[in-house]
């Protein structure tokens, strides 16, 4: 079995050899390590992407808008992902961002996961019928794992999930009430002395 350290090093070097700058290659190394750690096919997708990258001149998306369309050739997942990561602080006001045609979109995913950590919000990434909930770069919840190689994402969207509770207020109250059963009713004397400080602290 390859270690994550080996996966990162080889991904970084191969990205440089494929023509990316060292700085971008470093990003790819970290990303592929992350995909493999989460059980997604990083090495496979990177390998296949590099195989055809020289034949197809993928479009570089440097500036992200709310709708990013392309007519013929797919977007490069690495440049599109990097642009999203770099620009995410100014993009979150858009609530939802759409892309058409990203090549090897699993290579785009780790940038979105890292962006989730940068802005402190969960992000929902849809790649056609696959849904990924990216939780601050700590975990990924998905209906689509271990799919191997995904050559193209035709319709991709990213939703910024507001930081809000996943439950109703009455459900919270119910649990809170139950938790109160761990508390002790205070006597008058313990109210005075139990917390350490006096009743008046005007000294």
């Amino acid at each position, binding site marked *: 079995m390859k270690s994550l350290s*080996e996966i990162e090093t080889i991904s970084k070097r191969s990205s440089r050899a494929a023509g990316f700058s*060292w700085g971008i290659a470093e990003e790819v190394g970290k990303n592929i390590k992350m995909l493999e750690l989460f059980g997604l096919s990083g090495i496979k997708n990177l390998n296949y992407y590099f195989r055809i990258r020289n034949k197809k001149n993928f479009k570089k998306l440097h500036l992200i808008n709310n709708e990013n369309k392309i007519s013929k050739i797919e977007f490069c997942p690495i440049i599109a992902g990097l642009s999203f990561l770099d620009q995410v602080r*100014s993009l979150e006001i858009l609530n939802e961002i759409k892309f058409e045609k990203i090549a090897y979109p699993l290579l785009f995913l780790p940038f979105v996961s890292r962006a989730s950590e940068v802005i402190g919000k969960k992000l929902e990434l849809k790649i056609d019928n696959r849904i990924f909930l990216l939780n601050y770069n700590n975990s990924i919840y998905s209906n689509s794992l271990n799919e191997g190689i995904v050559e193209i994402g035709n319709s991709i969207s990213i939703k910024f999930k507001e930081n809000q509770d996943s439950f109703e207020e009455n459900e919270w109250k119910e649990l809170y009430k139950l938790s109160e059963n761990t508390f002790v009713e205070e006597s008058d004397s313990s109210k005075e002395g139990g917390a350490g400080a006096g009743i008046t602290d005007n000294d």
Partner: protein
Amino acid sequence: MQVKLRDPNVIMKLSRLGSFHQSKLSFLRSFLKEFKDWEYKRDLFNLDEFGYGVAVYSFKKKDRVYSLICFANKIEENERSDRVIATKWDAAFTLHDGVPTKKDIERLRNEVPKQEVGRLSYKELTLSRANKSVRIFNHVVESLSNGIQPDINLLSKVGYLYRTTAVYGSGKFGLADRFRIKNREEIYGPFRLEMMLVYLVRQFTFDQVNYVAKNKNPKKAVNLDLEICRNLGIGNSTGLGMAPFIVNHPTLLNNWIYAREMALKKIREIKNIKIENSNLFKLCLKKSIKNITSWNTESEYQQKKIRSLLNDLNIFINFIEKNFNFSKEFAFNEIYLWLEKNSGEECIEYVISMMMEPYDSIINPLINTMSSEEEKYFNIPTDRTVLELKTILEDKYSKILNIDFLKKENNQNFWFISKNKEEPRLADRFMENGSELEQPLAIARDIKKLYDSLSVFKNSSTIDKFLANNSDLRHVVRRAFIIEKFPYSEIQDNTIGQSIVPIDMLRLKLSFFGALKFDPRSDKWLRICMFQGAPLPEQLKNYDDHWVYN
């Protein structure tokens, strides 16, 4: 009194970093301190009469066991090489996490001797190999088998029976990734498991030499005297492979240097020095002189440094014996200021290491700060402005920005990875092919390029916009934001200039390992000795913190 931390523009110059010495912060010393209470055991010793076979050594505490598995093999004279191109070694080792099963040992017997072309598993933590110093090993076998102890003078000139030629960890060749073990308290300090491997290998070399001598002459042979053993260490040959490490791990480098600088600052701020502490400082200083006088090297570069160190130290010792009163306030601060004025870099850094000896209360908490969670600082804060980044560069790289990289001598060399052994190398850009495949280790040149590119960009623009047009500078943009938080994260020198001495980079790292007796064999590789004078595993219960000077 508040003492300022020393200026990174001075401390992070290569000549200064190449003058660092071992100290209480060094990893082999902190390793011994941490593991002194662990149960040491030789679990298996299955060698033939010539010393070839398998041995297992372990450290155990509660449920945790670390086991060194040694494979000693016969090799031909012409196969023995310390260079990284070698494919066979006298012995090969791995540190296994837990107690190895017979099946593990069989698996490892096929892989460990192959080193870089073998495959390890997540159950193995570190990997190494070593060659005999044949002259010394044979002399010791010959002497012991005849019932006498070896020539101590000969032994002290070399200092070891074996020298390692590489020690690997952190996921190399399938070894366990650091994330699997990083939360174990006993390995909070950097390179602890690498240190454990080397320490246990040292014991194997003594056991092997005794065993071979005994088999050679069972009736007459004696064991190597324990005091002689204690004064032998493990040698190490180190080449350029180590140099890029300190460039590629900026926050880790910062944490090592910062711990040292913080220790010095706190010691200089001590108002009243207790007499037992000043006495301990003086004692260690005087006793340490034998580590310098027994420092043998044929390197003129190093000989000159040693002569200068000895000369400066004699003047310094004379000063503190005759003209210095430790009862005055802030005595160590005064000593430091005197050193800055009167001594060279070697001596200043040497005495700083000695100043740490009495102060466990300062040093021990710093040891646990010397690792780094590097990934935390990987993301670039792309919402910052071009002006902010320019200000960081002007503030943190002021000397670097003055270097003219259009001059040939400042752009003479390039770092690359060799295809043969996948190891870093340095070559002349104007003489050798391959500079288009240069590694990103010319930080000074690229920082200067970044500054020039920023200068024609709008100050109020954010970094995301700058990067969209300048992806070739992304690696140094990241570093600049790291140095903003970590002032000692960057070498403040030109690593591709004509006058670079790469062994300065090696020596920095090796001093933090705790190595002694740096012996440069060229400007690109050197030999060192580790654990010389260290207590043997059986003696760890009576551990003396100042063993380096005994």
